[in-house]
């Protein structure tokens, strides 16, 4: 394994490690601040570059979580505003309302990170009926669009939307209960 003698490289390496260590928290904040899945990778990338490139400015020996939160939030807001600016007027107004809600939710303490939620989702998915599981897999894993699913099943697209709406509703309740249950057990 190569070790660098350059202190800047060491700092950047340390910063990268810290970023990876707190990746789950960062990812959770990113989606909370910019609730659009398409800009998530860019936000995480920007937050990473900002944190690592300016490693010499930070005190990496202290708790870096507040700093990472701040960096991620700012990166999230920048990308969110860029995304919103390009939208048509009505969609921009809807996005504004969504962001208000995201800021409101951001006030609440982050109780569960994305990884915990994914674990809960995994448990809850198994509780769904076989048909629902297949539908979820087809759409979210195999990437088949709602229109194509409707075409294959020979049903209106609206029926597929309604089914997903019901599935999401069941999953949300189940995930909340599972996470709460886990927290209570702790």
């Amino acid at each position, binding site marked *: 394994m190569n070790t660098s003698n350059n202190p800047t490289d060491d700092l950047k390496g340390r910063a990268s490690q810290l970023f990876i260590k707190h990746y789950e928290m960062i990812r959770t904040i990113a989606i909370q601040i910019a609730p659009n899945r398409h800009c998530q990778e860019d936000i995480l990338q920007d937050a990473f570059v*900002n944190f690592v490139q300016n490693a010499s400015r930070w005190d990496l020996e202290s708790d870096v979580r507040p700093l990472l939160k701040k960096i991620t939030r700012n990166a999230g807001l920048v990308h969110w505003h860029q995304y919103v600016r390009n939208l048509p007027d009505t969609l921009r107004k809807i996005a*504004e309302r969504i962001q208000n809600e995201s*800021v409101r939710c951001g006030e609440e303490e982050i109780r569960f990170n994305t990884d915990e939620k994914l674990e809960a989702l995994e448990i809850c998915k*198994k509780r769904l009926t076989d048909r629902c599981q297949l539908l979820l897999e087809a759409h979210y894993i195999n990437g088949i669009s709602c229109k194509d699913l409707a075409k294959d099943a020979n049903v209106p697209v609206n029926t597929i939307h309604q089914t997903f709406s019901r599935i999401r*509703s069941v999953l949300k309740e189940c995930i909340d209960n599972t996470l709460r249950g886990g927290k209570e057990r702790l």
Partner: protein
Amino acid sequence: MGQSFTPKERELVDLYLSGDLDPQQSEILLQSLDENPELIHCLYDNIILDYLLHLYGKKVNDLREDQEMLTEKDLSFDWHDPFSVSRNHDSTWISVPDPEINTVLIRQDPIEVISHSISYRQDPDSLNQSRSYEKQRPRKKSPFDGIGILCSLILFPLVVFLSLNRENADPAPEKTVPMVRLEEAIDAVWETGTRSYKRGEEAGPCRFVLKSGMIKLRLDNGSEIIAEGPNNLTLHNSKNLFCDQGKLSVSVSPEGIGFEIATPYATIVDFGTKFGVSIDDQGVRADVVQGAVQLTSQKISKPVQLSAGSAAFADRGEKIETIAFDPQHFIDAASFFEKLFVFHEKVKKTRRKQASKWLQDPALVALYDFSGEERKIVRNDARHSRKNGSEARIHNGKLDEGSLPGLSSISLCNRNARINCEISGNFSALTMIARVRFDRFRKEGNILLASNSYYEKDGSIQWRILPSGSIQLKIRSEKESLESIFTSDPFLNEAQPKVWYQFAVSADPQKKKIVFYVDGKNISERNWDQPTPLSIGEADLGNFLNKKSITKCCLEGSIEEFCIFDRALTETEMNQKE
């Protein structure tokens, strides 16, 4: 999604998630979001869940790829020993004869791989031991095991008891610690669909979207921010805010040194100072009045230091150039206070005008005005009142600050504090208006007015604010032990203490409606199916003292003005004042 949404609203949410909304549907969704605040929670929750599902899909796909790579054919390194595979109902264990890898565990359900993990050997020499991890030798029984079981038998109920008690003891949700206070607002108009803040309101991390007007914020570390509309700023904590549009003037206290303003183009870090910031589509401009700040662009690694009397402009992050200091580009604190003074005088003038108009209204029954230097009853038209005809007594109240500088109010600061008055006669219609401030909200309710004979006399009333942020009017019905209760929708998620509100309620027998107002705006209407004559009689403002019970629902706060009309005022009449 278990809330009350129409099928159409649900469909629109689904279409939004799938990105299939057409412009017309977007308009309908926007309208629905404004009409039904619950819908925005639903939409937000669905976006997050949708993201989670996509993430889950990606994870599963990644694992599938990993699994493919782990097949015997694809393994490129040289095996000294064939690896062994064992399976149970949901997992596959692969023992790899690699000196560094212990086992590879693949968990899978019948359809796809759920997760995989590779455990690494702590000690490369313990290769032979690692294979027998699952078959561990049974441990010899120790005499201490019995004590352990006994302890666990005693401790388990104790832990269960404590955990249950903990749940009961702390049912309330955690509150956000306030870190910013809206100290002043001049003609502030908030963007539609965003939260509007009132003067005196406190908040945690929050967003201020100002369409026009000016506001002054005070942070918990003593720093002050003046923002001019249009402005869009998000406050993360007392040392960090994000602003993508508008003008700001910042005065940082010694505790707030290091205060950071992030913008889409550059970041401004304070070193104990006063400075102005102006952000638009072209870039960000910083003018330093006192002290020093640092301007860092995202694309230029070297930050620029600015001292007092200097300024710089960062254009979309490409470059930062030093420019001449110009106080015209931000709001000067002195001019803000000048405007504030003019604004307050304007508000006072309109209030005085309104009060004189109300005094000429023959329907005015009583007007208690405590806003002047001498607290007074401008009018109490209760014809058969106390000996001198128009009197109210203030018990345990003290003079306090009013809703605007130069105005005063009566602070009711203990359980016996009240303003006792007498409004005799029966009223077929009624409007009550009160300008009050709460210092604390009581769980049981916060009385604005209560007839002392509420439990004895039909038609007696109680008017209170509930801690949930709803206004409630109770009317004693003809049959004993019955009462009609009218409760408004919450006017806020949670009522804010230390903020001045003008509450009003009107009972209109002709329209058979009870209408609730906050700051002159109709917030709720309730049907009043069987209008009955109302009576107040001897009553207390801000308290309810009854022989039958000790009151717990007194008002903890201040009253500036209280008036009663014997007709139902309209929303237009309410709004004439400000």
